[in-house]
């Protein structure tokens, strides 16, 4: 009957006396900074190539929301270290983030960011604004700059439904923070240049959520086609990209069946035309 004995001495006092901001990160750093990512230690040698890296994430807005998709490959140097890694994370009811770069740091970011948003929402009795969420994420990335210089780079892509505007919004970041709001679509990770090129041709204003999910799957395929660190759909193992949709109804991940349906459709078309759909020239 005493599960809180696990907590450091003096915490019970701290819990009830703290009257600072509604930020979880700030509260934790004031009493147990060791729980947060170690931001100031310096590594003897950069180990960037030895830890798993997550690669391509794409996101695009549609009428009334936003879709995000990520491939499933994690690589350590030239080795494929995992085939079914998840890189798209639900942050709260109306937002999600995808990570590219050092997988471990990215996953830690995603966990912390989720708690950060929920903590604020519960304490304030009100959700954070979209811009507020994007800024919080920027602060976390800025805090990781020293580690990024050591090779542990993590760059997220943030997508949210903005209830005030009834539209999806996308923010991308550099290693020093950001955030940069993107119109229509964006991609991050090693395959992003190819994905972005693909999206440029395939994006349609006012598309439906389903069409935009298909567009992102096409873009991920194009990224996997040209980038060795990005995984394509794994047909033999039935490992499909993760696709998340956020609109006025909240966050939802498309089901395996739905995604495999899109992938089958795409692969059938690619057997005829390997480079995928062609945008009209005029």
């Amino acid at each position, binding site marked *: 009957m005493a*599960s809180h004995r696990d907590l450091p001495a003096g915490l019970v006092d701290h*819990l*009830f006396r703290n009257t600072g901001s509604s930020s979880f990160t700030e509260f934790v750093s004031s009493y147990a900074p060791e729980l947060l990512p170690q931001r100031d230690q310096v590594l003897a040698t950069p180990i960037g190539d030895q830890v798993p890296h997550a690669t391509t994430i794409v996101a695009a807005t549609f009428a009334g929301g936003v879709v995000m998709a990520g491939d499933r490959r994690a690589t350590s140097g030239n080795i494929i270290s995992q085939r079914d890694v998840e890189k798209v994370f*639900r942050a709260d009811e109306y937002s999600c983030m995808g990570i590219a770069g050092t997988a471990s740091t990215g996953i830690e970011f995603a966990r*912390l960011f989720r708690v950060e948003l929920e*903590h604020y929402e*519960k304490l304030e009795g009100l959700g954070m604004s979209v811009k507020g969420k994007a800024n919080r994420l920027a602060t976390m990335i800025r805090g990781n700059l020293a580690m990024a210089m050591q090779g542990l780079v993590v760059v997220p892509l943030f997508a949210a439904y903005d209830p005030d505007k009834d539209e999806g919004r996308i923010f991308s970041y550099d290693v020093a923070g950001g955030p940069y709001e993107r119109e229509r679509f964006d991609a991050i990770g090693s395959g992003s240049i190819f994905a972005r090129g693909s999206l440029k041709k395939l994006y349609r204003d006012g598309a439906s959520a389903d069409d935009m999910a298909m567009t992102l799957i096409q873009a991920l395929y194009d990224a996997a086609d040209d980038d060795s660190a990005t995984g394509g759909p794994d047909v033999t193992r039935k490992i499909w990209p993760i696709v998340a949709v956020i609109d006025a109804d909240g966050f939802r991940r498309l089901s395996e069946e739905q995604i495999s349906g899109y992938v089958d459709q795409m692969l059938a078309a690619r057997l005829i035309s390997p480079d995928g759909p062609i945008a009209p020239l005029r």
Partner: protein
Amino acid sequence: MPFGYASPEQIMRDKADYARKGIARGRSVVVLQYVDGLLFVAPNPSRALHKISEIYDRIGFAAVGRYNEFEELRRGGIRYADINGFTYDRTDVTGRGLANLYASNLGRIFTESIKSLEVEVVIAEVGETPESDAIYRLTFDGSVFDEHGFAAMGGQAEAVVNRLKERYRESMSLADALEVALSALTEPGGERPPVGQLEVAVLDRNREHRKFLRLTGARLERLLGQSSATTTPETPPSTPLETPPSDAPPPTGPEGPVDDGSSPL
């Protein structure tokens, strides 16, 4: 500094009386089980100052008494839950752990401080099945009561509990549970609080991720219209209602007007 001598027994009794008097000034709050989880109902004219809140994925909080005091408890509970969930795993945050935290904190304040907290708190946790739902009621002195089916606290708690006992059944629909809660909160022949002055929330085991959901506006009105007429004949119970204890004011009881529903506390 106090003059003369008062026995520890007397001091504790005075503190308890003081706290009871403070809590009795507020209106009651009800927590009860329904088929898909747990329902929280509080008459509360304020839209911003909540008596009911989410603590964690499966854990809700309800309180009566002094707002600033239970608000501090609520915030402390959220910090505790978020830290534990972040340090270990989200499934490692339990209602029992929170109840213990609150009990030790309330008990310490009751014994060590001059003034005890004038609050009563319910920590409710929704499980995978109705059998694993848990309702912990905590009083100002740190006592913990593991309630089954329902709990009520606040000014008219005893009368409300009696009315709940009469009408509560297992595995009620949400609309029926709400109807039961409202009739328990309303004195026989009394007028029900209007929809705008109700704070209603659920912990719904069928929801994804976070189970807590506030019911407001049209959704709540629809629900109020749905309750099957079979559950509540509008006849007052035949047994005489018990009046809340301690009509005689304790020597150190706080002065103040009796709650008329206009204040959120």
